[in-house]
């Protein structure tokens, strides 16, 4: 793996001129695990408390990692150096792609547009079914990073005519400062910012984040603390609190519930979640029930039966949620948006494409019912 080839890669997404202004990262010559010189940032982290004896306490996520000098948090991307807490991944991007926004999935946010999607290494939870485990379950020095300061992200976005930046693939919470600064920078150019997160975050940073981003998609891994402990190594309650904060902020939010057969698919659990949605964040928050496809450690588990997803959708509709989708089942009728009033199709989708849009200034073309979302 040479520096040039990585540079060429970036050329394809950004052009040589832009890259020339950035310092190429330290690229691994052979295999990542034996890399000695890593391309890490040293930007002081936010949300931490200094303690005696050069110790610190991280207050970004509910783990509250208490760290001595030279120790890193659970996420592997924040390090205490001499009593000062640094983020090591500020502007250190390991994955950058252009995806349809429907792939995130956001169904009520600029449908049919591309999102410039970026991630750094690391995550603050450990899901057995992670789709991006190769970058989420590693330390930043174990992957190849490219320097992409906020300004450059915005430039790429403009070049590729992406109206949105999506912070995605891994867990944006752990590259919080970078998300924040990039969002501020992007807003200046009228580029929207969306965060795809598990929302394992503390209230204060979440509140602050909602001030600069435009939409947040929250992954509910299940609706039980037991599942979060066993399969995610996290907690559910902080996620719920984060969702309440987003709701309060008025920013657009969508919920995804990845239904894994027999592990989190009981009708009781789904109903409990739906009741919570209605009560705490309202019936207009779209809920996507996604089909599990074998991934990472549970690569040999069967995919979710479609009937399980349909049952979940029916429960959600029964409970009064207005926009309920089924994900990862291409061609399913529940990929489309239906008007809760006249039941006509407002947005007809097939996989990642919009086939029909019956929406006029945010309202159903047939009956005038306002359809919540960010449409332009």
């Amino acid at each position, binding site marked *: 793996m040479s520096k040039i080839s990585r540079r060429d890669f970036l050329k394809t997404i950004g052009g040589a001129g832009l890259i020339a202004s950035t310092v190429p990262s330290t690229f691994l010559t052979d295999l990542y695990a034996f890399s000695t010189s890593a391309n890490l940032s040293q930007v002081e982290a936010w949300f931490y408390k200094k303690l005696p004896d050069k110790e610190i306490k991280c207050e970004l996520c509910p783990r509250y990692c208490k760290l001595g000098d030279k120790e890193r948090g659970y996420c592997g991307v924040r390090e205490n150096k001499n009593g000062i807490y640094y983020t090591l991944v500020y502007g250190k991007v390991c994955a950058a*792609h252009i995806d349809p926004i429907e792939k995130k999935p956001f169904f009520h946010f600029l449908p049919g547009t591309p999102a410039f999607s970026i991630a750094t290494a690391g995550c603050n939870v450990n899901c057995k079914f992670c789709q991006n485990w190769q970058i989420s379950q*590693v330390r930043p020095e174990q992957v190849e990073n490219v320097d992409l300061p906020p300004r450059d992200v915005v430039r790429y976005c403009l070049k590729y005519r992406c109206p949105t930046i999506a912070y995605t693939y891994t867990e944006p919470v752990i590259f919080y400062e970078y998300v924040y600064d990039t969002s501020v920078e992007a807003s200046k150019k009228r580029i929207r910012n969306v965060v795809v997160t598990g929302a394992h975050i503390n209230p204060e940073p979440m509140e602050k984040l909602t001030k600069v981003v435009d939409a947040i998609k929250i992954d509910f891994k299940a609706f039980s603390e037991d599942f979060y402990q066993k399969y995610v190594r996290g907690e559910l309650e902080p996620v719920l609190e984060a969702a309440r904060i987003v709701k309060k902020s008025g920013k657009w939010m969508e919920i995804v519930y990845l239904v894994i057969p027999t592990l989190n698919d009981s009708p009781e659990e789904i109903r409990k979640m739906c009741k919570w949605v209605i009560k705490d964040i309202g019936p207009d928050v779209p809920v996507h029930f996604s089909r599990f496809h074998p991934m990472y450690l549970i690569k040999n588990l069967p995919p979710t039966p479609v009937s399980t997803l349909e049952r979940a959708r029916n429960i959600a509709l029964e409970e009064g949620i207005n926009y309920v989708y089924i994900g990862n089942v291409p061609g399913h009728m529940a990929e489309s948006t239906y008007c809760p009033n006249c039941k006509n199709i407002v947005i007809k989708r097939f996989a990642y*494409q919009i086939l029909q849009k019956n929406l006029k200034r945010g309202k159903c073309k047939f009956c005038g019912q306002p359809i919540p979302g960010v449409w332009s």
Partner: protein
Amino acid sequence: MNFFFPFLLGFAALSFQILLMREFVAHYYGNEITYGLILSFWLLWGGIGSLLANKIKYSFSVLTFFYYLLGFFFPLLLIFLRYSRFIYKILPGEITGILPIFITSFLLTLLISFPLGTLFVLNVKFYKGKIAFVYLMEALGSTAGGIITYFLLIPFFSNWNGALIIIGFSILCLIFLEKGKRKIYPFILIPFIVFLAFLDKPTQKHYWKPFNFIESKDTLYGKLSVIKTEEQLSLYDNGFLVYSYPDIISAEEAIHFALIQRPQAKSLLIIGGGIGGAIAQALKYQNLKIEYVELDPQIIKFSMKYLPEKEKKYLENKRVKIYFQDGRAFLKKVQKRYDAIILNLPEPSTAQINRFYTLEFLKLAREKLSPNGIFSFKVSSSENYINAPLQKFLSSLYFTMKKVFQNVEVVPGDTNIFLGSDTSLILDYRELGERIEKLKLNNLWVNSYTLFSRLREERINFLYERIKSGDAKINLDLVPISYFYNSILWATHFKGIESKFLIFLSQISRFWLLDFPFIIFLIILFFILLKKTKFYSYLFPIWLMGFTTISLELILIIAFQVNFGYVYQKIALLFSAFMFGLFCGALSGKWKKESKFLDLILVQFGFMILTFIAWKFIEMKWPEISSYIFLYLMGFLGGILFVIANELFLKKEKNYGIGYAFDLLGSFLGALTLSTILIPLIGLPLLTKYIFLANSFCFLFLILNLKIRS
């Protein structure tokens, strides 16, 4: 009937070994590392057991007690194996790391192989030091155990019940051998075994929880299990998902990326994985005739039993023909050419499956393609980031394809579909989307609605940049490197040191893997030569014999499968030929009245010749029968060498376990290093050369020894 004790030992030992290995890989991730670990621990504990057995005070009741202990431990071990996933908190179908495999195989083999090793020495004591006789009878027992297990138990019984039959038979023999000495053990064991016979299915049900276990069958090739979650039917082979139905995404990906390149194709060959949706997709192409080769007929039987009618009808379609055979053997024999060949097998995680991803196989596939034909296979990948181990794995497959086909394209995504052809290939989503529309395929996944994103230029460039810049070797039949890369990839799923260790191995030069250990070997030989004590001159050839025989066995099985395909009965016969050779060798060694050092030199000379033949012929085509003869001869020489060397040694020192331990420790080293590391990294030709060199130096060492002596 006095000969029966060692016979029973060999009989039980080999049957248990075969059945344990089969059960183990049905419960844990079965790649070459798993196979290597369990086999090597088996041999290690056997060696340690026989080393320590000298300390056990012999009595007849101690001897029989150990036999009963085996009968008690083996079923316990099977139960433990089935429930061990709960200890590690892993789900059925979850990929297991090296640590659980290491711990479980270490403990299980301790329970069973340690007493087996001890029993060998106890038997020698029982027969008052007649080690040759014990070895002979043990070899005969192993031969019988192997033949009965391979040809009678595995084809007709589950592993679980097969084990119980062996134990039941052993207990009956013991009752008979004890000649009426009443013991309580049989009265405990027999009801225990009868009780266990009913537990095979219930314990499997527990194993699969929280999934709904329907049925399973141990076939010649592995454990097939049917799981149903609502309407979703899943078929597992040794814990790997063969297919889950319905899964339109996998089915469409397997077929359409290849066929849409050649929409006019008239003939298609699907190797593996045709069932569960793939054939239904292929039938969408109107003029296509489909031939489907599947190794295990039980996969079709289960599918016909449990799949919905609609899906069964596809298999019965006039345009579909099914063959039950090894895909590679089929392709070699078939006389026709196909417009498309789709390989839909699991990834190359073992040497056995790796045969379908090698340069030689691809060349064979190309030969059987029409001039405009297309070949394709798929492997799981990562859509957004390709780490270095995945890069190496994909690169090795890509470069191997590139050596055979003029054009090679790879479809990006969480699954990478490799396409190879001598004529043009297209990845333009507009063009492909148009073709799909025009043919009215009504695809749900492989269509313009997803392709515009999946085949975006940046995505393709990103993947190609990674694959083309990867520093990987070509995957060859005799240097099967891709399964090693696949092992690294597996190891990176876990945060332990295993991936670092494997990466380290893949990076170090041949000197450290081969020359350095060989130099150490020579230094040891040299020091033994200098030493006045002679007994290592007897033990060292035994150690080398253990190493050589297991190494050449593993090498030959791989080479055999490459040439003649994977045919269960033939592989079983190969092992049996070796065991029978051991017996005959031991028999002829025993016939000699007194063994002399010169005899040992002669046998070692035989090993030198045999390993020379292996080295010189490994890269050539040889007739099938010669494989059986070779293994028989190797067993034969091994048997004689063991008997002669042990008799010589025992004249100097009365320690019955040491010779056996050296044999097993040599085998342990071979089992641990060969298929896991050395075969993929070094390759068969060079390995056989070094094995020949090691045997030649051992021969020289013995001659020098003789000179010093005289």
